């Protein structure tokens, strides 16, 4: 699974993207976040308040209960501030 991080999520985690093998029981975006939070202090800090984070699976916005699968591109980022 390819994970992508942007803005302060990227800064806290310390990398822009990574390819990982996620546990088989990580079936949804929120499962994935629960697992990511265990990977280190940067992850825990980035995902401390998940209400402050938006998610995309394969470049489409999704809700936290959206399923994820091996081969997906999953992105985590703050609410957008362009324009």
């Amino acid at each position, binding site marked *: 699974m390819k994970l*992508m991080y*942007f*803005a*302060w999520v990227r800064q806290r985690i310390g990398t822009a993207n990574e390819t990982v093998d996620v546990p088989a029981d990580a079936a949804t975006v929120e499962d994935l976040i629960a697992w990511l939070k265990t990977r280190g202090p940067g992850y825990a800090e980035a995902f401390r308040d998940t209400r402050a984070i938006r998610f*995309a699976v394969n*470049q*489409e*916005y999704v809700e936290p209960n959206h399923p994820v699968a091996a081969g997906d591109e999953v*992105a985590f*980022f*703050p*609410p*957008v*501030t*362009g*324009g």
Partner: protein
Amino acid sequence: MTVRVQEEDFDVGRELATLTAGNHAIGGLGVFVGLVRDIAGGQAVSAMSLEHYPGMTERQLEAIEREAHARWPLDASLIIHRVGDLMPGDNIVLVACASAHRQAALDATGFLIDWLKTKAPFWKREDTPEGARWVDARETDDAAAARWG
């Protein structure tokens, strides 16, 4: 329908001339240009950096533009958004919509910039005297987008 995400500056006059060239059914052009301000939240801003999600950003902008064309009778439209390092006074974004009449052109332009601000994956970081900070999303932007339904 055109969407461009680029580091380079754009020339508003040249972009608008290209947008309407050869189509004399166009009677009105709505235009919004966003610029980098030198103050935000009461703090001086000396520079801005814009990050995006290559691929998803373009897809979102194209989807927003298609929605504008579904809602209003547009002859042409254009969204250009810059990324990278910008300075106060620099152009950030250009949105333009062309139609036979002004109301569709103006409304579609307002719709596009309001939706862009809440849906397109861009993130601003500002340099201030107290250091760099990520710009927080504003509830007023959500409200502005929500009024279009």
